[in-house]
């Protein structure tokens, strides 16, 4: 089970994923400042070490620099989060979720067509 992370922690995770799963501390700071975040150095270190503690990141030293590598991929994380979301709000009922999406126009016909093709392609391969 993947532990819950705070929004700011997720922001850091997204940076690491965007960097292809591994990022140096300096890279992360750079990305943060690009995103307009002026977080303190120690704050970022604290957040990163929380992510390490929660098993989402692994840290290793390259020389004197800290490198953070994602243990959990973005897709896995999304899946796990969706699952927990689904369980919490729809009692595990996917139809309910999809119904909400369609009813509120969050899911367009174009999306549906793409998804259908993706689904058929997936099932063919499985055969």
């Amino acid at each position, binding site marked *: 089970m993947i532990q819950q992370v*705070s*929004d700011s922690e997720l922001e850091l995770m997204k940076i690491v994923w965007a960097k292809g799963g591994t990022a140096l501390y300096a890279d992360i700071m750079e990305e943060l400042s690009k995103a307009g975040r002026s977080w303190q*150095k120690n*704050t970022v270190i604290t957040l990163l*070490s*929380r992510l390490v503690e929660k098993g989402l990141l692994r840290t290793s030293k390259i020389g004197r620099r800290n490198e953070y590598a994602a243990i959990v991929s973005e897709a896995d994380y999304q899946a796990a989060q969706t699952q927990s979301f689904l369980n919490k709000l729809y009692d595990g009922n996917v139809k309910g979720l999809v119904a909400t999406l369609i009813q509120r126009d969050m899911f367009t016909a174009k999306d549906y067509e793409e998804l259908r093709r993706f689904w058929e392609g997936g099932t063919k391969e499985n055969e």
Partner: protein
Amino acid sequence: MNSIFKLFLSMSVSGSLMILALLFLKSLLRNKISRQWQYYAWLIVIARLLLPITPDESLVGNLFRWADQASSVPAAVYDGDESMKSTPYGDNPMDDTMRSLLGNRFESGIPSQKGTLSEASASAQDSAAFGYTDPSKGENISAVFGYLWILWLTGALVLLARKITAYQSYARYIRAGCREVADIAMLDLLAREEVWAGVKRPVELYVNNMVSSPMLLGLFRPCIILPTADLSQDEFLCTVRHELIHYRRWDMPYKWLVQITICLHWFNPLVYLMGRELGRACELSCDEAVIRSLDQQGRRAYGDTLLHAVRPGGVCREPFASVLLGESATLLRERLDAIMKYKKMSKKGCCAALLVSAALAFAFAASGAYAAEAAVGNRTAVPVKAVDVPDNMPSGTGVVPETEMETLEIKGITYYLVFNEEQLRAIGTGRYGMDLNYMQQADIQLSDEEWMPIGTMENPFTGSYNGNGYEIAGLTMKNPDAAVVGMFGVAENAHIYNITLRDYDIMDAGKNVSALAIAPILPLALGDARSYDNFVYPKEAATAPEMADSGSSDVLADEYYGVNLPQFSYAFAALDENAQGAWLERIYNDGEIAFFSVSLQQLDVDNPLTTALAQKAYEDGKISFFSVLTDHMGAKTLEAWLDKAKQENRVSFQSVILKALDRDWELEALEEELERQQLEEYGNYGITREGKAYYYQGQMVNIFLDHQSGSAFYRLDMNPNGVVNIKITRGEDGTIQSVDYMTEQEVEELFGER
């Protein structure tokens, strides 16, 4: 094992003395000395309680030794056997002392009176001698004594284990209920405070509503735990600042150290008192550190934070090892009081702190411990330092064998004094070794008994012989088979000097030897052996002395010049007048004033050489050389010089001459005059003086350097309030040439030299 217990016991006693002393001092100086000092001063006490370092002589060490010895007097009742026996303690001669010494322990309730007594008797167990026993009494009690240390150690371990487990379960419990603070604003504030406090590693921030007040938890990776995240920015800042200071100052390890000390000295009620005092001092000094960084308003906010920090109905009772922001009401009141009264430690306070620290450090050493013996389990009694009295050295003029030599100590070197033939012949025999320093003290007339040279190839002379200007007459060697002929035979790294050998007769010796080594003083010198300043007058030879040992003094003087003052002076003394004159000139020109001074000592007062040199120095204005020369002038000569100097108004020469004449009051008047003249001279160059401060062009002078190159005249004045650095350059004649500001480099050079 008992000896270690005894060691701890002694440390406990001396530690108790220090605890009492510190508590007393603190009550005297509570508000005058910084809280931080009050906090760290306890470290000295803890060191006393934990470290078995002690000087040879110390209060408690002596007390315990005394107790040891007292207990070993037959009247005392302890047996050295493991089964120690005792009369009831009332008969114990040590009892009163030990009772008053350990009086506090009687009230502690932990060890009984018997326990206390048994501690005393335990200390007796290792003593060197033991008295007889009275087997009829108290066997049951005393059987326990030998095992007292088990009680002590068990108590200590159990206490320590309990403390650790209690702490662990508490920490686990608190950590389980902790939520991370995700608020970036708060984390950023914390991060800034960490930078401010100089904390390198980020501290984790948690909220746990089960704690009653903010705290720092964890020994190796501490974290701050707040009871709530619902804090105003001011409150939050004050809180984390306080906790970060705890972290930076290593308060957690300090607290653990205190706890370990308490566990090891669990039988001593004073250590609990110390623990409590330390806890308070820790908080107070931390407050002090925080408010030092705050203005008046900030301090008020900090006080408010303290008040709000204690939430009513806090859930968990904290063990010692978390550092809390708020604590009991009394401590809180004291802390608020301290915040309001806070002022920077005055100079007086600093002095007091330093003095008291020094006193404590002294107390640390003085109270000592019964360590020296106890630590090594040494069974010997107090060692009596044997004074090394050489029994073979006669000290007076009593009837002693004539070969016995007296000794003389000069600058830590022992010289054996040679007065007569027997003593001279004794050199190199028996206890008068080849490696000693001998000094002749009288003229010696030798009998015509065959002389045996001092020092052989197998056993060369390696010490020193100073003939001291006395004569040795009638040295005779006739042995035709002697291969080495002379007063000395073979010497290695020895110094043989100032000998006058008269009427010696060695010409017939060694006739049968082809490779004959023959010389009046030293035929064979090995290594760095030196033979110099010796004069030899062979029997029936010409009366004119010849320099001994071919190596001429001039060569020696050259060798020692600039290197070895005393040796140079000896070589100089042996030179003839012309050579001495040449040497003095050379030294004078080289400016080697030290060599100049020792050389002059070899000359008589008013020696023509001195007179000529004085003239030269006076003309050259070399006051330092002139000053040395005045020591070798008679009063008449000096007065003549004084008149001359007065006429020519050479003030500095006058002062040197007056000094040599011991005319102090004239000197004083002159120096005043000199000072006046100098100020006048300075005035011409824009330098004025007010009180002790110099001013140059109206600006106060920091570094004031007046130095005439090549002379001893030197005036350096430093005034930390000054703003400019000036340098006065003087010409050959001693008058001011220029006044300049010093460059950075010159200032550096000046201090580099210092």
